[in-house]
């Protein structure tokens, strides 16, 4: 209840993992953790879909629909009849993901 963030578009195929550990380095929310022989999905609901893991995975074991979680940009895109998922035109500032 009142939690829209429990599910994300992050998908991890552990079978492809070569245990390079790159995803554990780039994730800012410790979603991935080192496990026995391969990386484990430790905190999936903490994922903010920044896409750093997928972009740096050498074997494409990770997919995520990355994008900026910025309501203002999405609402104004929707109001202008544009696609909410491709548009991000926030002013943004340091700390925001919406430059």
């Amino acid at each position: 209840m009142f939690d829209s963030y429990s599910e994300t578009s992050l998908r991890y195929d552990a079978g492809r993992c070569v245990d390079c550990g790159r995803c554990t380095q780039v994730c800012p929310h410790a979603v991935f953790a080192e496990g026995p022989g391969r990386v484990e999905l430790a905190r999936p609901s903490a994922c903010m879909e920044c896409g750093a893991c997928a972009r740096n995975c050498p074997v494409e074991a990770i997919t995520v629909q990355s994008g900026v979680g910025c309501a203002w940009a999405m609402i104004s895109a929707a109001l202008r009849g544009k696609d909410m998922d491709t548009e991000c035109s926030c002013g943004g500032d340091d700390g925001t993901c919406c430059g």
Partner: protein
Amino acid sequence: MEPEQSASACCPRTTEPLVSSCGCSTGAPRTEEIETATSTITFANRLDHALARWKWRRSDHRVRPGLYRLGSPTAESPVFASANYTLSFDAVRSALAGIDAWILVLDTKGINVWCAAGKGTFGTDELVRRIESAGLASVVRHRSIIVPQLGAPGISSLEVARRSGFAVEYGPVRARDLPEYLRTRTATPAMRRVEFPIADRLVLAPVELVAALPMFLAAIVLWFLAGPIAALAAVSAVLAGTVLFPVLLPFIPTRDFSTKGLLLGLVVALPFAFSFAATPGLPGWAAVLAAVAALLLVPAVVSYLALNFTGSSTFTSRTGVRKEIFRYVPVMAVMAVTGALAGLALGAGRLAGVL
């Protein structure tokens, strides 16, 4: 090889034409001047930072992209990548006080590393382009570049290595951890985590306030239409959504920003609702309408501002924000319209002389 890279094996096509000639990455002659930077943050720098925080001339807080010399770096000194936003560049150069290093500033159009990475301007193409235009391969003997961890959403380390010959090493999230990182060459789990402490939340409040300025105009209009207390309620709603909400973010119940905003807005609205309801000489129906207007309008405004703070927060996913928009924006709209109608009814009553 992908089509966009096939133009020339050593010369990736980029969105903007290169000013300097584009040589192959190995031993290409340098074509750009190396600039000199210091670790000192001057008064002018601090003023620039303060203005940036208040969104003053938002896109003017830039440094020139290119390679910078910090201290007396040699061919063995580490290379750090940064963005051409003054707050980003100044954080790196001041954190590296006393360290001889190279700083490669990417052209991110004056946007910080994380935001620019999300947009792709702090990205693989720009990094490869800067490595080549700066002639980095002839400046340093090693083939490693330390990229801030928050640049990773825009950088494919594999592609950078393949195209430039430089290995990407992801440094810590925060520039202030760089000296410790240089000593151990590993980032601790704490250095890799993004937090959102009160100082980081509060520093964003001015930008939120500036964005909400038009709402203060509404407060002035309300002053003339409905009196000073109604105007104060409007100002309180805006301040609650832009300043109080970021401060109290982790302490307000529920995970969704909209519901957090509704709760906060309700608390802010209560004293106004009581004050309106207790106005002497007001008939019962009007007292109820006035209270209802406050209880609907203030939470709707605070909730909307709170939802917009998702873009400034460091942890909301797009999937979640999308869900929030579809779940709560209709609720906010209904509340706002109903509240406004209640207010209009009161105004009509006053015009008709019954109040």
